[in-house]
């Protein structure tokens, strides 16, 4: 089974690889998957606490090429979105964009889980402090 061009592109030129320090203001972190399953994704968002927009996103992934591509694509899509809009990204969007075959759908599911986990972490840390104005 050959990889789609988009998967190869994200694998060869992954967008937004890296990490924010967890205590950076506005950062939410999601860590999903499990080493024994062969897939772990760490996805982080950095939200501008004034505007509520996701200004930056970063990822690190242990997994196959499709898992790396799914998380790379997710960080691209997250940037510039509000927290609420970010929550609307679905795994099927990732499948369609990357043309993932059926055996790789779980990679997109994991990427969606990573997004949700990062958003939940952000909300837990900052929503109670009155941040995330755009979520109103």
């Amino acid at each position, binding site marked *: 089974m050959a*990889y789609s061009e988009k998967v*190869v592109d994200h*694998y060869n030129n*992954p967008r937004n*690889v890296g*990490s924010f320090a967890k205590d950076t203001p506005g950062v939410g972190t999601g*860590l*999903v*998957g*499990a*080493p*024994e*399953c*062969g*897939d*772990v*994704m*760490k996805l982080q968002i950095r939200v501008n606490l004034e505007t509520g927009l996701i200004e930056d996103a970063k*990822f*690190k*992934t*242990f*997994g*196959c*090429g*499709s*898992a*790396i591509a799914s998380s790379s694509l997710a960080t691209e899509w997250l940037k510039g979105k509000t927290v609420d809009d970010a929550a609307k990204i679905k795994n099927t969007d990732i499948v369609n964009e990357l043309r993932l075959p059926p*055996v790789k759908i*779980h990679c997109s*599911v*994991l990427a969606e*889980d990573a997004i949700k986990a990062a958003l939940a972490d952000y909300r837990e840390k900052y929503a109670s402090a009155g941040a995330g104005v755009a979520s109103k």
Partner: protein
Amino acid sequence: MALKFPIFMDAQSTTPTDPRVVEAMLPYFTDKFGHPASRNHSFGWEAEGAVDAARGQIARLIGARDPKEIVFTSGGTEAINLALKGVAEMYREKGNHIVTTAIEQRASMDVCKRLERQGLEVTYVPVAPDGLVDPEALRKAITDKTILISVMFANNEIGTIQDVAAIGRLAKEKGIIFHTDATQAVGKVPVDVEAMGIDLLSCTAHLIYGPKGVGALYVRRKGPRVRIAPLIDGGGHERGMRSGTLPVPLIVGFGRAAEICGEVMREEGARLAKLRDGLQDTILSNVDEAYLNGHPERRLPHNLNISFAYVEGESVLMGLNKESALSSGSACTSATLEPSYVIGALGASAELAHSSIRFSLHRFTTEEDVEYVGKRMIEVVKRLRDMSPLYELAKEGVDIKSIHWKAE
């Protein structure tokens, strides 16, 4: 010598056919196309002669006394099916128990699973962390219902070579038939069915620089005379054990491939072991937390299997697949979506099974090939570790096992 891409380093999945083998085969497609079972004309005699010559070449390579002990099949998988199912059926009055190991190749495992569904009992004896099965553990697994011991000669993933002679002695002592899946070992390391007490042996042509589509089961005729029920009925070819028109060109190629292996094995094994050891040293001295899988000495000369902690195998292969062809025990590279049960059986974590890479060298592998693949492997693993959350956690001093992972 200039590098030729992609570099094939997956020679335990298949090997290129040696040009000398192809040359030997060609006349048997055209001029010498006879059916070896045609007893009344020269076309048949010519074909029969060619098949018998090949039988002799294969018998010599494995130390069989009599070429008639070679039964041709469509490949290693069929040979294994014939051995296991053939014994199970032929000796069912005598018993219903098979002793095997936890690291047999897929074909053996799947046959055993089917036999279990049909009511047989199978004991899968575990192996040590280096992949060796203890003959004493096999002895303990034997019951008065045991009709067959089936242990692979050398493992297809980690290359570990079992103490086949000791297992053969055990089988003789207990009066139990001993089958070995020698698909990975024949032609690569010395195999001697007489000296090692082997009663049934499976092998295949395409792993010894012969054609795909032909293999053989060695079936001992004396001391003891082993009988097996056929899988395929028909014209009673191959002494009734495997009916069907023999693929003469493939068999001729198999014979020639066996002959060449017999001639070059010692020299070729030494050359490949040296290249392999160099590759291993290069990788292990340049990559931290890279672990050799299998036994460090008792292994096939052309095999190297390494787990690169914190990176997933398929992603490693993806980084190299324009330039080289390797294989991985990662779930993502298997049809079953499970990581390698062989690496798992060594007691390694599932994570390390996902991270395993198999390098297998062959007759046409050059020093330049090995240097190139080693250098690129180091680069790719480093790049992937830079994007691995597990490597980051490990470098921060976090014990990955202490994290409560939420599996899907």
